[in-house]
């Protein structure tokens, strides 16, 4: 009886001595605590869609459109998602654009640090790919990922390099890579081209394939945009071209019924 008296709440709705600490709102899920934001997996905000990459004899091409989507809104239409790392490496990212900007700033600083050392050594495409893998895997292990699919391409020691890293740290090298919708729509086209040419694509053929894929993506990816940047790396260095567009053929619209 005495114990029951002692376990009365101090005031109505207030804490009771001897009980686990109860307070208003403890069990209500719409009260978010400040620590949740740090611990929870992030969500992308402004996003870029597919990035394509394709090796050819003597170099690599990558392509990405210049759209930063805000959900379903085509909000930022002149956004560059391709960066030059150094004279032998380029990098492009799909996914959250802010995270790409962070990666870009980190890498640019690493390149500056190397220039300052001035010892004739510079990051190879393989080194950039490896660093990217370590960085992305580390972040995902903290449950705080950089929400990107990164493509690293380059030409080093006479060989083409093309690699991909995911937001969860899945990394691999391949003759053709594509992120986002490109993985479903463009990758089969690129792989077919590689197979038909005996793994020995010329620059012109590779370029043609990439442009075809970009057109297909514009037709079918609802978050794409008809303005893209193409970047090429060869032994002569890096060239990121001015944005261009595909010439889509909408004649098929004539036979479509039901959307008039």
């Amino acid at each position, binding site marked *: 009886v005495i114990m029951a008296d002692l376990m009365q709440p101090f005031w109505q709705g207030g804490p009771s001595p001897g009980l686990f600490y109860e307070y208003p709102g403890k069990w209500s899920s719409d009260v978010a605590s400040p620590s949740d934001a740090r611990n929870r997996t992030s969500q992308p905000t402004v996003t870029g869609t597919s990035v394509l990459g394709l090796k050819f004899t003597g170099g690599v091409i990558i392509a990405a459109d210049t759209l930063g989507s805000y959900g379903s809104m085509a909000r930022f239409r002149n956004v560059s998602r391709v960066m030059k790392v150094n004279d032998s490496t380029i990098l492009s990212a799909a996914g959250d654009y802010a995270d790409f900007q962070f990666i870009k700033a980190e890498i640019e600083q690493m390149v500056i640090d190397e220039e300052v050392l001035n010892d004739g050594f510079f990051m190879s495409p393989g080194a950039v790919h490896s660093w990217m893998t*370590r960085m992305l895997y580390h972040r995902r292990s903290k449950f705080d990922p950089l929400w990107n699919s990164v493509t690293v391409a380059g030409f080093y020691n006479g060989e083409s390099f093309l690699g991909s890293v995911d937001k969860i740290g899945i990394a691999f090298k391949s003759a053709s890579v594509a992120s986002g919708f490109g993985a479903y729509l463009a990758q089969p086209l690129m792989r077919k081209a590689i197979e038909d040419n005996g793994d020995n694509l010329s620059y012109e053929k590779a370029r043609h394939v990439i442009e075809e894929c970009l057109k297909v993506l514009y037709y079918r990816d609802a978050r794409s945009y008809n303005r893209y940047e193409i970047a090429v790396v060869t032994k002569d260095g890096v060239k990121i071209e001015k944005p261009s567009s595909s010439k889509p053929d909408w004649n098929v619209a004539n036979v479509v019924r039901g959307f008039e």
Partner: protein
Amino acid sequence: MEAVKQGSATIGLKSKTHAVLVALKRAQSDLIAHQKKIEKISPHIGISISGLTSDARSLGNYMRSECMHHEFLFNTRLPVSRLVAAVGDKTQTPTQRYGRRPFGVGILVAGFDEKGPHIYQTCPSANYYNCKAMAIGSRSQSARTYLERHLNEFADCTPEELVRHGLTALRETLPSEQELSVKNCSVAVVGEGQDLVAYEDEQVSIFLDLLEEKRSSRNVPAPQQQEAGQVGELPGLVPPVSGQPREDEEQPMDM
């Protein structure tokens, strides 16, 4: 600085494709094993030390961890120059902080990277030098003289010939009663298509045998200079006229 001069001699030299280290291991007494001088830092870098062994271990561990860290992040081998610069940065701090003492060890670094083979020397002063060939440690001046004399031959040597030059130079540093043997010698080789290999004990005999072949046809050169306080230890030495020891001609360590 003194500690480095008191440690037993070690020599590094390189050709166009390889870098080698040879070292004379010292035993405090017959009861104690010869002190290891050559350590592997990574598949492409080896070091040889002269001076305080404990400080050498500390720096060696640091060098290993730098190499591993770089390989983990970038999947490429750490350029030798960058590793040596990192050692220089680390050893500089205790030369400028109150209450700390410099690392009492001189290191010869032999490494191979994209720019070819390298020999670097680091000092307790935190200076480091990119060398074509170098000898440090006790009585190393005779070895340096040998290296200077034969410098132009090294570029085209095979690794075996490099080691033979190294051992010949090492022999110059020995007191007359000592001989190079598998007990007191170690060798390391690294280079193009050849990850670092260190040779100890019995394995060194293949190189010592090369030396024997040459010995019979070799003219013994007169050693040029004498270390302070060690008059008369090497055959053919001329003691200083005035009776005062000559100025040491060790590589200056800017302090």
